[in-house]
Protein backbone atom coordinates (compact mmCIF):
# COMPACT_ATOMS: atom_id res chain seq x y z
CA UNK A 1 0.00 0.00 0.00
CA UNK A 2 2.56 2.52 1.21
CA UNK A 3 4.81 1.47 -1.63
CA UNK A 4 2.08 2.12 -4.18
CA UNK A 5 1.39 5.51 -2.61
CA UNK A 6 5.10 6.22 -2.76
CA UNK A 7 5.22 5.17 -6.41
CA UNK A 8 2.25 7.38 -7.21
CA UNK A 9 3.92 10.22 -5.37
CA UNK A 10 7.18 9.68 -7.19
CA UNK A 11 5.26 9.39 -10.44
CA UNK A 12 3.42 12.65 -9.73
CA UNK A 13 6.68 14.37 -8.83
CA UNK A 14 8.24 13.07 -12.02
CA UNK A 15 5.34 14.35 -14.07
CA UNK A 16 5.53 17.71 -12.36
CA UNK A 17 9.27 17.86 -12.89
CA UNK A 18 8.90 16.80 -16.51
CA UNK A 19 6.31 19.49 -17.13
CA UNK A 20 8.80 21.98 -15.76
CA UNK A 21 11.29 20.62 -18.25
CA UNK A 22 13.77 19.29 -15.69
CA UNK A 23 12.88 15.62 -15.40
CA UNK A 24 15.01 13.87 -12.84
CA UNK A 25 15.05 10.11 -12.81
CA UNK A 26 14.97 8.29 -9.48
CA UNK A 27 17.58 5.52 -9.44
CA UNK A 28 17.51 2.46 -7.21
CA UNK A 29 20.48 0.85 -5.48
CA UNK A 30 19.95 -2.37 -3.48
CA UNK A 31 22.61 -3.19 -0.89
CA UNK A 32 22.90 -6.62 0.74
CA UNK A 33 25.43 -7.61 3.39
CA UNK A 34 25.99 -11.00 4.98
CA UNK A 35 26.21 -9.77 8.57
CA UNK A 36 26.32 -6.55 10.53
CA UNK A 37 29.72 -5.81 12.05
CA UNK A 38 31.75 -2.58 12.26
CA UNK A 39 33.86 -3.09 9.13
CA UNK A 40 30.94 -4.09 6.89
CA UNK A 41 28.64 -1.40 8.32
CA UNK A 42 31.39 1.12 7.52
CA UNK A 43 31.40 -0.12 3.92
CA UNK A 44 27.62 0.45 3.70
CA UNK A 45 27.96 3.98 5.08
CA UNK A 46 30.85 4.70 2.73
CA UNK A 47 28.86 3.62 -0.32
CA UNK A 48 25.96 5.93 0.61
CA UNK A 49 28.23 8.89 1.41
CA UNK A 50 30.14 8.55 -1.86
CA UNK A 51 26.91 8.31 -3.85
CA UNK A 52 25.68 11.49 -2.14
CA UNK A 53 28.92 13.22 -3.05
CA UNK A 54 28.47 12.13 -6.67
CA UNK A 55 25.03 13.72 -6.76
CA UNK A 56 22.84 10.74 -5.89
CA UNK A 57 20.97 11.73 -2.74
CA UNK A 58 18.74 9.29 -0.93
CA UNK A 59 15.10 10.41 -0.92
CA UNK A 60 15.80 12.89 -3.68
CA UNK A 61 16.94 11.14 -6.84
CA UNK A 62 18.02 7.86 -5.24
CA UNK A 63 16.22 5.01 -3.48
CA UNK A 64 18.44 2.76 -1.35
CA UNK A 65 17.25 -0.68 -0.29
CA UNK A 66 19.36 -2.30 2.41
CA UNK A 67 19.12 -5.77 3.94
CA UNK A 68 21.40 -7.78 6.22
CA UNK A 69 21.24 -11.59 6.27
CA UNK A 70 22.31 -11.58 9.94
CA UNK A 71 24.89 -14.25 9.20
CA UNK A 72 22.31 -16.65 7.79
CA UNK A 73 23.01 -17.91 4.29
CA UNK A 74 19.43 -19.01 3.57
CA UNK A 75 18.25 -15.47 4.27
CA UNK A 76 21.11 -14.09 2.16
CA UNK A 77 19.78 -16.18 -0.71
CA UNK A 78 16.24 -14.87 -0.20
CA UNK A 79 17.49 -11.28 -0.05
CA UNK A 80 19.28 -11.85 -3.35
CA UNK A 81 16.02 -13.14 -4.94
CA UNK A 82 14.06 -10.24 -3.52
CA UNK A 83 16.49 -7.71 -4.96
CA UNK A 84 16.64 -9.42 -8.36
CA UNK A 85 12.84 -9.43 -8.41
CA UNK A 86 12.72 -5.68 -7.82
CA UNK A 87 15.25 -5.12 -10.65
CA UNK A 88 17.12 -2.12 -9.21
CA UNK A 89 19.70 -0.21 -11.25
CA UNK A 90 22.60 -1.72 -9.28
CA UNK A 91 22.89 -4.42 -6.61
CA UNK A 92 25.74 -3.91 -4.15
CA UNK A 93 26.86 -7.09 -2.36
CA UNK A 94 29.06 -6.74 0.71
CA UNK A 95 31.34 -9.73 1.55
CA UNK A 96 31.92 -12.98 -0.33
CA UNK A 97 28.86 -15.11 0.63
CA UNK A 98 26.43 -12.29 -0.21
CA UNK A 99 28.21 -11.60 -3.48
CA UNK A 100 27.99 -15.27 -4.49
CA UNK A 101 24.28 -15.56 -3.77
CA UNK A 102 23.60 -12.38 -5.76
CA UNK A 103 25.79 -13.63 -8.61
CA UNK A 104 23.82 -16.90 -8.67
CA UNK A 105 20.48 -15.08 -8.85
CA UNK A 106 21.18 -11.99 -10.99
CA UNK A 107 21.52 -12.56 -14.71
CA UNK A 108 21.34 -9.09 -16.22
CA UNK A 109 21.29 -6.65 -13.32
CA UNK A 110 24.63 -4.88 -12.71
CA UNK A 111 26.33 -6.07 -9.51
CA UNK A 112 29.12 -4.29 -7.62
CA UNK A 113 30.72 -6.28 -4.80
CA UNK A 114 32.75 -5.00 -1.86
CA UNK A 115 34.95 -6.51 0.86
CA UNK A 116 35.66 -9.63 -1.22
CA UNK A 117 39.27 -10.77 -0.79
CA UNK A 118 39.60 -13.10 -3.77
CA UNK A 119 36.94 -12.41 -6.44
CA UNK A 120 38.54 -14.84 -8.91
CA UNK A 121 38.76 -17.66 -6.37
CA UNK A 122 35.15 -16.93 -5.36
CA UNK A 123 34.27 -17.33 -9.09
CA UNK A 124 32.61 -13.91 -9.16
CA UNK A 125 34.75 -12.75 -12.08
CA UNK A 126 36.88 -14.68 -14.54
CA UNK A 127 39.72 -12.15 -14.33
CA UNK A 128 40.44 -9.01 -12.35
CA UNK A 129 41.27 -6.95 -15.44
CA UNK A 130 38.23 -7.86 -17.53
CA UNK A 131 35.34 -9.24 -15.44
CA UNK A 132 33.25 -9.69 -18.61
CA UNK A 133 29.72 -10.34 -17.38
CA UNK A 134 27.54 -8.13 -15.17
CA UNK A 135 29.78 -8.11 -12.10
CA UNK A 136 32.72 -6.10 -10.82
CA UNK A 137 33.69 -4.46 -7.55
CA UNK A 138 36.35 -3.65 -5.01
CA UNK A 139 38.55 -6.31 -3.45
CA UNK A 140 40.04 -6.00 0.03
CA UNK A 141 43.05 -8.06 -1.01
CA UNK A 142 46.20 -6.68 0.59
CA UNK A 143 48.14 -4.35 -1.74
CA UNK A 144 51.30 -6.35 -1.10
CA UNK A 145 53.39 -4.40 -3.62
CA UNK A 146 52.60 -1.09 -1.96
CA UNK A 147 53.43 -2.64 1.42
CA UNK A 148 56.78 -3.79 0.05
CA UNK A 149 57.46 -0.32 -1.43
CA UNK A 150 56.92 1.09 2.04
CA UNK A 151 59.14 -1.53 3.65
CA UNK A 152 61.93 -0.85 1.15
CA UNK A 153 61.56 2.87 1.68
CA UNK A 154 62.32 2.35 5.37
CA UNK A 155 64.94 -0.37 4.87
CA UNK A 156 66.43 -0.12 1.35
CA UNK A 157 69.16 -2.63 2.17
CA UNK A 158 66.93 -5.42 3.50
CA UNK A 159 67.51 -8.62 1.50
CA UNK A 160 65.84 -11.34 3.54
CA UNK A 161 62.26 -10.79 4.76
CA UNK A 162 60.74 -13.06 7.36
CA UNK A 163 57.09 -13.80 8.00
CA UNK A 164 55.17 -15.84 10.54
CA UNK A 165 51.97 -17.50 9.32
CA UNK A 166 49.45 -20.21 10.11
CA UNK A 167 49.53 -22.96 7.45
CA UNK A 168 46.00 -23.95 8.50
CA UNK A 169 44.47 -20.59 7.61
CA UNK A 170 43.42 -20.47 3.95
CA UNK A 171 43.67 -16.68 3.52
CA UNK A 172 47.04 -16.59 5.24
CA UNK A 173 48.43 -19.31 2.98
CA UNK A 174 47.36 -17.55 -0.21
CA UNK A 175 48.77 -14.24 1.05
CA UNK A 176 52.12 -15.88 1.87
CA UNK A 177 52.23 -17.46 -1.59
CA UNK A 178 51.59 -14.06 -3.13
CA UNK A 179 54.17 -12.44 -0.85
CA UNK A 180 56.82 -14.96 -1.90
CA UNK A 181 56.11 -14.28 -5.56
CA UNK A 182 56.20 -10.50 -5.19
CA UNK A 183 59.40 -10.61 -3.13
CA UNK A 184 61.08 -12.83 -5.73
CA UNK A 185 60.20 -10.22 -8.36
CA UNK A 186 62.23 -7.73 -6.31
CA UNK A 187 65.14 -10.13 -5.86
CA UNK A 188 64.34 -10.51 -2.20
CA UNK A 189 64.11 -13.74 -0.26
CA UNK A 190 61.17 -14.81 1.93
CA UNK A 191 61.90 -16.82 5.08
CA UNK A 192 58.76 -18.51 6.43
CA UNK A 193 58.06 -19.62 9.97
CA UNK A 194 54.89 -21.61 10.66
CA UNK A 195 52.75 -21.32 13.79
CA UNK A 196 49.51 -23.32 13.91
CA UNK A 197 48.32 -21.71 17.14
CA UNK A 198 48.94 -18.48 19.02
CA UNK A 199 51.16 -20.26 21.56
CA UNK A 200 53.56 -21.24 18.78
CA UNK A 201 54.03 -17.70 17.45
CA UNK A 202 56.86 -16.85 19.89
CA UNK A 203 58.88 -19.94 18.97
CA UNK A 204 58.31 -19.37 15.27
CA UNK A 205 59.47 -15.74 15.56
CA UNK A 206 62.64 -16.82 17.40
CA UNK A 207 63.48 -19.17 14.54
CA UNK A 208 63.74 -16.12 12.27
CA UNK A 209 66.48 -14.47 14.37
CA UNK A 210 69.73 -14.35 12.39
CA UNK A 211 67.92 -15.42 9.23
CA UNK A 212 66.18 -12.18 8.29
CA UNK A 213 66.70 -8.38 8.08
CA UNK A 214 63.05 -7.48 8.64
CA UNK A 215 59.76 -9.17 9.50
CA UNK A 216 56.51 -8.48 7.64
CA UNK A 217 53.20 -9.77 9.00
CA UNK A 218 50.10 -10.27 6.82
CA UNK A 219 46.56 -10.20 8.23
CA UNK A 220 46.85 -13.81 9.45
CA UNK A 221 44.37 -14.04 12.35
CA UNK A 222 46.46 -16.42 14.44
CA UNK A 223 49.64 -14.37 14.18
CA UNK A 224 47.98 -10.97 14.62
CA UNK A 225 46.30 -12.28 17.78
CA UNK A 226 49.79 -12.87 19.15
CA UNK A 227 51.58 -9.95 17.44
CA UNK A 228 53.23 -8.94 20.75
CA UNK A 229 55.26 -12.15 20.65
CA UNK A 230 56.73 -11.25 17.25
CA UNK A 231 57.32 -7.65 18.35
CA UNK A 232 59.14 -8.69 21.51
CA UNK A 233 61.47 -10.90 19.47
CA UNK A 234 62.00 -8.01 17.02
CA UNK A 235 62.93 -5.67 19.87
CA UNK A 236 65.30 -8.12 21.51
CA UNK A 237 67.04 -9.15 18.30
CA UNK A 238 66.94 -5.75 16.57
CA UNK A 239 64.74 -6.89 13.67
CA UNK A 240 62.18 -4.28 12.54
CA UNK A 241 58.62 -5.65 12.36
CA UNK A 242 56.21 -4.30 9.71
CA UNK A 243 52.49 -5.04 9.57
CA UNK A 244 49.71 -5.09 6.99
CA UNK A 245 47.10 -3.61 9.33
CA UNK A 246 47.36 -0.25 11.06
CA UNK A 247 46.15 -1.50 14.47
CA UNK A 248 49.35 -3.52 14.93
CA UNK A 249 51.43 -0.31 14.79
CA UNK A 250 49.91 0.85 18.06
CA UNK A 251 50.90 -2.53 19.51
CA UNK A 252 54.58 -1.91 18.65
CA UNK A 253 55.21 -2.58 14.95
CA UNK A 254 57.37 -0.02 13.13
CA UNK A 255 54.96 0.89 10.34
CA UNK A 256 51.93 -0.24 8.34
CA UNK A 257 50.22 0.93 5.20
CA UNK A 258 46.58 0.01 5.70
CA UNK A 259 43.08 1.04 4.77
CA UNK A 260 39.86 1.42 6.63
CA UNK A 261 36.59 -0.08 5.51
CA UNK A 262 34.80 3.25 5.33
CA UNK A 263 37.16 4.28 2.51
CA UNK A 264 36.63 0.84 1.00
CA UNK A 265 32.92 1.68 0.87
CA UNK A 266 33.65 5.10 -0.64
CA UNK A 267 35.61 3.44 -3.45
CA UNK A 268 32.76 0.96 -3.96
CA UNK A 269 30.30 3.86 -4.09
CA UNK A 270 32.39 5.50 -6.82
CA UNK A 271 32.04 2.34 -8.93
CA UNK A 272 28.30 2.25 -8.26
CA UNK A 273 28.04 5.87 -9.43
CA UNK A 274 29.86 4.95 -12.66
CA UNK A 275 27.31 2.20 -13.30
CA UNK A 276 24.44 4.59 -12.58
CA UNK A 277 26.02 6.93 -15.11
CA UNK A 278 25.85 4.21 -17.72
CA UNK A 279 29.03 2.12 -17.36
CA UNK A 280 28.84 -1.66 -17.64
CA UNK A 281 30.46 -3.59 -14.75
CA UNK A 282 31.84 -6.17 -17.18
CA UNK A 283 34.09 -3.47 -18.66
CA UNK A 284 35.28 -2.18 -15.28
CA UNK A 285 38.39 -3.87 -13.85
CA UNK A 286 38.14 -5.08 -10.25
CA UNK A 287 39.70 -2.40 -8.03
CA UNK A 288 41.83 -2.81 -4.95
CA UNK A 289 42.19 -0.15 -2.31
CA UNK A 290 43.85 3.00 -3.60
CA UNK A 291 43.54 5.19 -0.51
CA UNK A 292 46.02 3.75 1.95
CA UNK A 293 46.94 5.28 5.29
CA UNK A 294 50.49 5.17 6.60
CA UNK A 295 50.84 4.59 10.34
CA UNK A 296 54.32 4.82 11.87
CA UNK A 297 55.76 4.24 15.33
CA UNK A 298 59.20 5.94 15.60
CA UNK A 299 59.77 4.75 19.19
CA UNK A 300 59.17 1.14 18.15
CA UNK A 301 61.64 1.70 15.30
CA UNK A 302 64.26 2.88 17.78
CA UNK A 303 63.72 -0.21 19.92
CA UNK A 304 64.24 -2.38 16.83
CA UNK A 305 67.37 -0.52 15.79
CA UNK A 306 66.22 1.80 13.00
CA UNK A 307 65.47 5.51 12.75
CA UNK A 308 62.49 6.51 10.64
CA UNK A 309 63.31 9.36 8.24
CA UNK A 310 61.69 12.76 8.74
CA UNK A 311 59.89 12.70 5.41
CA UNK A 312 58.37 9.28 6.15
CA UNK A 313 57.01 10.61 9.44
CA UNK A 314 55.72 13.66 7.60
CA UNK A 315 53.86 11.39 5.15
CA UNK A 316 52.24 9.40 7.92
CA UNK A 317 48.55 9.86 8.61
CA UNK A 318 49.18 8.88 12.20
CA UNK A 319 52.36 8.87 14.25
CA UNK A 320 51.95 6.51 17.16
CA UNK A 321 53.74 7.71 20.26
CA UNK A 322 54.37 4.68 22.41
CA UNK A 323 57.04 4.78 25.04
CA UNK A 324 57.09 1.71 27.15
Amino acid at each position, binding site marked *: MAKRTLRTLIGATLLAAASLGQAQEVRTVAITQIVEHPALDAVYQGVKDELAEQGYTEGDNLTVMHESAQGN*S*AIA*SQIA*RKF*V*GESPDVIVAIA*TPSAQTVAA*AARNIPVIFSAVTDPVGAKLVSSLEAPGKNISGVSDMLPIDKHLDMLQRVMPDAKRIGTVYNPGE*ANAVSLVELLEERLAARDLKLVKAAATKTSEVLGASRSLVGEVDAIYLTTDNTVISAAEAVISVGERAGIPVFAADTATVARGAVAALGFDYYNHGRQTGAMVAKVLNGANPGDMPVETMDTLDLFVNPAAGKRMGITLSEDLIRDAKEVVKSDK
Partner: protein
Amino acid sequence: MLSEIAFYGAIETGLIYGLVAFGIYISFRVLDFPDLTVDGSFPLGAAVAAVLIIGGWNPWIATGAAVLAGMAAGAVTALLNVKLKILNLLASILTMIALYSVNLRIMGRPNVALLTEQTVLTPWYNLDLAYHQVPVLLFIIVVIVALILLWRFMKSETGLAMRATGANPRMARAQGIATGAMIVLGVALSNGLVGLAGALFAQSQGAADVTMGVGVIVIGLASLIGGEAVITPSTVVRALLACVFGAIIYRLAIAFALNADVLGLQAQDLNLITAVLVTLAIVLPGVRSSVIGKFTRNKA
Protein backbone atom coordinates in the same frame (compact mmCIF):
# COMPACT_ATOMS: atom_id res chain seq x y z
CA MET B 1 3.97 -7.25 -2.90
CA LEU B 2 6.29 -10.14 -3.56
CA SER B 3 7.92 -10.24 -6.95
CA GLU B 4 7.73 -13.50 -8.92
CA ILE B 5 11.44 -14.11 -8.43
CA ALA B 6 11.27 -13.56 -4.67
CA PHE B 7 8.24 -15.90 -4.52
CA TYR B 8 9.94 -18.75 -6.39
CA GLY B 9 13.09 -18.10 -4.35
CA ALA B 10 11.10 -18.61 -1.14
CA ILE B 11 9.59 -21.86 -2.47
CA GLU B 12 13.02 -23.10 -3.55
CA THR B 13 14.63 -22.42 -0.16
CA GLY B 14 11.52 -23.81 1.54
CA LEU B 15 11.79 -27.10 -0.35
CA ILE B 16 15.44 -27.46 0.65
CA TYR B 17 14.60 -26.74 4.27
CA GLY B 18 11.73 -29.21 3.96
CA LEU B 19 14.43 -31.89 3.71
CA VAL B 20 16.03 -30.45 6.86
CA ALA B 21 12.63 -30.61 8.56
CA PHE B 22 12.29 -34.30 7.51
CA GLY B 23 15.58 -34.93 9.30
CA ILE B 24 14.50 -33.03 12.39
CA TYR B 25 11.17 -34.87 12.36
CA ILE B 26 13.04 -38.19 12.58
CA SER B 27 15.37 -37.10 15.39
CA PHE B 28 13.05 -34.89 17.48
CA ARG B 29 9.65 -36.44 16.87
CA VAL B 30 10.23 -40.11 16.01
CA LEU B 31 13.27 -40.76 18.22
CA ASP B 32 12.81 -37.98 20.81
CA PHE B 33 16.50 -37.18 20.31
CA PRO B 34 17.30 -33.41 20.43
CA ASP B 35 20.00 -33.31 17.76
CA LEU B 36 22.06 -30.18 17.07
CA THR B 37 24.42 -32.05 14.73
CA VAL B 38 22.48 -30.52 11.82
CA ASP B 39 24.22 -27.14 12.22
CA GLY B 40 27.37 -29.03 11.22
CA SER B 41 26.00 -31.65 8.84
CA PHE B 42 24.30 -29.05 6.63
CA PRO B 43 27.61 -27.33 5.71
CA LEU B 44 29.26 -30.79 5.71
CA GLY B 45 26.96 -31.89 2.90
CA ALA B 46 27.68 -28.62 1.08
CA ALA B 47 31.44 -29.01 1.55
CA VAL B 48 31.59 -32.63 0.37
CA ALA B 49 29.42 -31.95 -2.69
CA ALA B 50 31.32 -28.76 -3.58
CA VAL B 51 34.77 -30.31 -3.31
CA LEU B 52 33.78 -33.35 -5.38
CA ILE B 53 32.10 -31.20 -8.04
CA ILE B 54 35.24 -29.03 -8.25
CA GLY B 55 37.20 -32.27 -8.56
CA GLY B 56 35.26 -33.13 -11.68
CA TRP B 57 32.83 -35.70 -10.25
CA ASN B 58 29.28 -36.06 -11.50
CA PRO B 59 27.15 -33.68 -9.41
CA TRP B 60 24.63 -36.40 -8.54
CA ILE B 61 27.41 -38.68 -7.27
CA ALA B 62 28.80 -35.71 -5.33
CA THR B 63 25.35 -35.14 -3.83
CA GLY B 64 25.09 -38.82 -2.93
CA ALA B 65 28.47 -38.62 -1.20
CA ALA B 66 27.16 -35.61 0.75
CA VAL B 67 24.27 -37.78 2.00
CA LEU B 68 26.71 -40.48 3.14
CA ALA B 69 28.90 -37.87 4.88
CA GLY B 70 25.84 -36.50 6.69
CA MET B 71 24.88 -40.04 7.74
CA ALA B 72 28.39 -40.64 9.09
CA ALA B 73 28.18 -37.42 11.14
CA GLY B 74 24.81 -38.47 12.56
CA ALA B 75 26.17 -41.93 13.36
CA VAL B 76 29.03 -40.35 15.33
CA THR B 77 26.57 -38.34 17.45
CA ALA B 78 24.42 -41.41 18.07
CA LEU B 79 27.39 -43.60 18.96
CA LEU B 80 28.67 -40.97 21.42
CA ASN B 81 25.26 -41.21 23.05
CA VAL B 82 24.63 -44.96 22.83
CA LYS B 83 28.12 -46.35 23.38
CA LEU B 84 29.77 -43.69 25.55
CA LYS B 85 26.57 -42.73 27.40
CA ILE B 86 27.06 -39.01 26.70
CA LEU B 87 23.84 -37.02 27.07
CA ASN B 88 22.17 -36.81 23.61
CA LEU B 89 22.13 -33.01 23.44
CA LEU B 90 25.78 -32.76 24.51
CA ALA B 91 26.81 -35.53 22.09
CA SER B 92 25.28 -33.60 19.21
CA ILE B 93 26.97 -30.35 20.29
CA LEU B 94 30.33 -32.15 20.36
CA THR B 95 29.86 -33.46 16.83
CA MET B 96 28.64 -30.07 15.65
CA ILE B 97 31.73 -28.17 16.84
CA ALA B 98 34.04 -30.91 15.56
CA LEU B 99 32.39 -30.65 12.15
CA TYR B 100 33.43 -26.99 11.89
CA SER B 101 37.08 -28.05 11.75
CA VAL B 102 36.26 -31.07 9.58
CA ASN B 103 34.44 -28.84 7.08
CA LEU B 104 37.40 -26.44 6.92
CA ARG B 105 39.67 -29.44 6.31
CA ILE B 106 37.45 -30.82 3.57
CA MET B 107 37.21 -27.48 1.75
CA GLY B 108 40.78 -26.37 2.51
CA ARG B 109 39.44 -22.83 2.87
CA PRO B 110 36.32 -21.16 4.25
CA ASN B 111 34.48 -20.86 0.93
CA VAL B 112 34.34 -23.04 -2.19
CA ALA B 113 32.61 -21.39 -5.16
CA LEU B 114 30.42 -23.36 -7.58
CA LEU B 115 29.21 -20.43 -9.67
CA THR B 116 30.79 -21.66 -12.90
CA GLU B 117 30.62 -25.41 -12.23
CA GLN B 118 28.26 -28.05 -13.60
CA THR B 119 25.72 -28.80 -10.86
CA VAL B 120 22.66 -31.03 -10.64
CA LEU B 121 20.71 -27.99 -11.86
CA THR B 122 22.74 -27.33 -15.01
CA PRO B 123 20.99 -29.74 -17.46
CA TRP B 124 17.58 -28.54 -16.27
CA TYR B 125 18.22 -25.01 -17.46
CA ASN B 126 17.71 -26.26 -21.02
CA LEU B 127 14.04 -26.74 -20.22
CA ASP B 128 11.62 -24.12 -21.44
CA LEU B 129 11.24 -22.51 -18.01
CA ALA B 130 12.19 -19.19 -16.45
CA TYR B 131 15.60 -19.25 -14.76
CA HIS B 132 14.13 -18.97 -11.26
CA GLN B 133 11.58 -21.77 -11.80
CA VAL B 134 14.12 -24.49 -12.60
CA PRO B 135 15.40 -25.15 -9.04
CA VAL B 136 11.80 -25.26 -7.78
CA LEU B 137 10.86 -28.01 -10.28
CA LEU B 138 13.92 -30.13 -9.52
CA PHE B 139 13.63 -29.75 -5.75
CA ILE B 140 9.91 -30.63 -5.81
CA ILE B 141 10.87 -33.93 -7.44
CA VAL B 142 13.65 -34.55 -4.89
CA VAL B 143 11.34 -33.76 -1.96
CA ILE B 144 8.55 -36.03 -3.29
CA VAL B 145 10.99 -38.92 -3.78
CA ALA B 146 12.40 -38.42 -0.27
CA LEU B 147 8.89 -38.22 1.17
CA ILE B 148 7.76 -41.50 -0.49
CA LEU B 149 10.94 -43.33 0.55
CA LEU B 150 10.62 -42.10 4.16
CA TRP B 151 6.94 -42.96 4.30
CA ARG B 152 7.61 -46.53 3.09
CA PHE B 153 10.51 -46.84 5.51
CA MET B 154 8.38 -45.74 8.46
CA LYS B 155 5.83 -48.43 7.60
CA SER B 156 8.48 -51.16 7.31
CA GLU B 157 9.39 -53.42 10.21
CA THR B 158 12.57 -51.42 10.89
CA GLY B 159 10.64 -48.16 10.75
CA LEU B 160 8.07 -49.44 13.22
CA ALA B 161 10.86 -50.61 15.53
CA MET B 162 12.40 -47.13 15.31
CA ARG B 163 9.11 -45.47 16.18
CA ALA B 164 8.68 -47.85 19.13
CA THR B 165 12.20 -46.95 20.31
CA GLY B 166 11.32 -43.26 20.40
CA ALA B 167 7.87 -43.75 21.92
CA ASN B 168 8.84 -46.10 24.73
CA PRO B 169 12.43 -47.33 24.85
CA ARG B 170 11.91 -49.71 27.77
CA MET B 171 8.95 -51.40 26.13
CA ALA B 172 10.84 -51.56 22.84
CA ARG B 173 13.77 -53.28 24.51
CA ALA B 174 11.38 -55.73 26.18
CA GLN B 175 10.04 -56.58 22.71
CA GLY B 176 13.57 -57.47 21.62
CA ILE B 177 14.29 -54.29 19.62
CA ALA B 178 17.94 -53.24 19.59
CA THR B 179 17.17 -49.64 20.62
CA GLY B 180 20.81 -48.53 20.37
CA ALA B 181 21.01 -49.63 16.75
CA MET B 182 17.69 -47.89 16.04
CA ILE B 183 19.02 -44.61 17.46
CA VAL B 184 22.20 -44.88 15.38
CA LEU B 185 20.20 -45.64 12.23
CA GLY B 186 17.65 -42.89 12.85
CA VAL B 187 20.09 -40.10 13.68
CA ALA B 188 22.25 -41.14 10.71
CA LEU B 189 19.21 -41.06 8.41
CA SER B 190 18.22 -37.68 9.80
CA ASN B 191 21.63 -36.14 9.16
CA GLY B 192 21.86 -37.79 5.75
CA LEU B 193 18.77 -35.81 4.77
CA VAL B 194 20.32 -32.64 6.18
CA GLY B 195 23.54 -33.35 4.26
CA LEU B 196 21.42 -33.69 1.10
CA ALA B 197 19.80 -30.33 1.84
CA GLY B 198 23.23 -28.73 2.34
CA ALA B 199 24.51 -30.15 -0.94
CA LEU B 200 21.48 -28.89 -2.89
CA PHE B 201 21.62 -25.49 -1.20
CA ALA B 202 25.30 -25.01 -2.10
CA GLN B 203 24.56 -25.89 -5.71
CA SER B 204 21.59 -23.54 -5.99
CA GLN B 205 23.25 -20.55 -4.30
CA GLY B 206 26.63 -20.91 -5.95
CA ALA B 207 28.99 -21.73 -3.08
CA ALA B 208 29.66 -23.82 0.01
CA ASP B 209 30.62 -21.65 2.96
CA VAL B 210 31.84 -22.85 6.34
CA THR B 211 29.41 -20.52 8.13
CA MET B 212 26.27 -21.68 6.32
CA GLY B 213 25.16 -24.03 9.09
CA VAL B 214 24.44 -21.24 11.56
CA GLY B 215 20.86 -21.48 12.77
CA VAL B 216 19.82 -24.47 10.63
CA ILE B 217 18.43 -26.21 13.69
CA VAL B 218 16.26 -23.23 14.66
CA ILE B 219 14.90 -22.83 11.14
CA GLY B 220 14.29 -26.57 10.80
CA LEU B 221 12.44 -26.64 14.11
CA ALA B 222 10.45 -23.55 13.16
CA SER B 223 9.42 -25.27 9.93
CA LEU B 224 8.49 -28.51 11.71
CA ILE B 225 6.44 -26.82 14.43
CA GLY B 226 4.87 -24.32 12.06
CA GLY B 227 3.86 -27.09 9.69
CA GLU B 228 2.33 -29.14 12.49
CA ALA B 229 0.24 -26.11 13.42
CA VAL B 230 -1.26 -26.15 9.91
CA ILE B 231 -1.46 -29.88 9.21
CA THR B 232 -2.19 -32.06 12.24
CA PRO B 233 0.50 -34.76 12.14
CA SER B 234 -1.82 -37.66 12.89
CA THR B 235 -0.16 -39.99 10.35
CA VAL B 236 3.38 -40.27 9.00
CA VAL B 237 2.40 -38.84 5.62
CA ARG B 238 0.64 -35.89 7.22
CA ALA B 239 3.66 -35.30 9.47
CA LEU B 240 6.01 -35.32 6.47
CA LEU B 241 3.72 -33.03 4.49
CA ALA B 242 3.62 -30.73 7.51
CA CYS B 243 7.45 -30.52 7.37
CA VAL B 244 7.44 -29.38 3.74
CA PHE B 245 4.54 -26.97 4.11
CA GLY B 246 5.98 -25.55 7.32
CA ALA B 247 9.32 -24.90 5.64
CA ILE B 248 7.67 -23.19 2.67
CA ILE B 249 5.35 -21.10 4.87
CA TYR B 250 8.35 -20.04 6.95
CA ARG B 251 10.25 -18.96 3.83
CA LEU B 252 7.25 -17.06 2.48
CA ALA B 253 6.91 -15.31 5.83
CA ILE B 254 10.58 -14.26 5.63
CA ALA B 255 10.07 -13.05 2.06
CA PHE B 256 7.09 -10.98 3.18
CA ALA B 257 9.04 -9.67 6.16
CA LEU B 258 11.77 -8.53 3.76
CA ASN B 259 9.05 -6.64 1.88
CA ALA B 260 7.27 -5.29 4.91
CA ASP B 261 8.33 -1.66 4.60
CA VAL B 262 4.74 -0.89 5.51
CA LEU B 263 5.16 -2.10 9.07
CA GLY B 264 8.42 -0.22 9.46
CA LEU B 265 10.33 -3.48 9.77
CA GLN B 266 14.02 -3.37 8.95
CA ALA B 267 16.83 -5.77 8.24
CA GLN B 268 17.95 -5.95 11.85
CA ASP B 269 14.47 -7.10 12.94
CA LEU B 270 14.66 -10.42 11.06
CA ASN B 271 15.83 -12.56 13.95
CA LEU B 272 13.13 -11.09 16.14
CA ILE B 273 10.52 -11.92 13.48
CA THR B 274 11.81 -15.51 13.42
CA ALA B 275 11.49 -15.79 17.18
CA VAL B 276 7.95 -14.35 17.09
CA LEU B 277 6.95 -16.72 14.28
CA VAL B 278 8.25 -19.77 16.15
CA THR B 279 6.56 -18.68 19.36
CA LEU B 280 3.25 -18.14 17.56
CA ALA B 281 3.55 -21.52 15.85
CA ILE B 282 4.11 -23.21 19.20
CA VAL B 283 1.41 -21.32 21.09
CA LEU B 284 -1.39 -21.05 18.50
CA PRO B 285 -2.36 -24.77 18.26
CA GLY B 286 -2.74 -24.83 22.06
CA VAL B 287 -4.93 -21.72 21.99
CA ARG B 288 -7.04 -23.22 19.22
CA SER B 289 -7.60 -26.52 21.02
CA SER B 290 -8.44 -24.78 24.30
CA VAL B 291 -10.98 -22.62 22.48
CA ILE B 292 -12.44 -25.67 20.76
CA GLY B 293 -12.39 -27.45 24.12
CA LYS B 294 -14.48 -24.69 25.69
CA PHE B 295 -17.01 -24.86 22.91
CA THR B 296 -17.38 -28.63 23.16
CA ARG B 297 -17.69 -28.48 26.93
CA ASN B 298 -20.38 -25.83 26.61
CA LYS B 299 -22.27 -28.03 24.19
CA ALA B 300 -22.12 -30.96 26.56
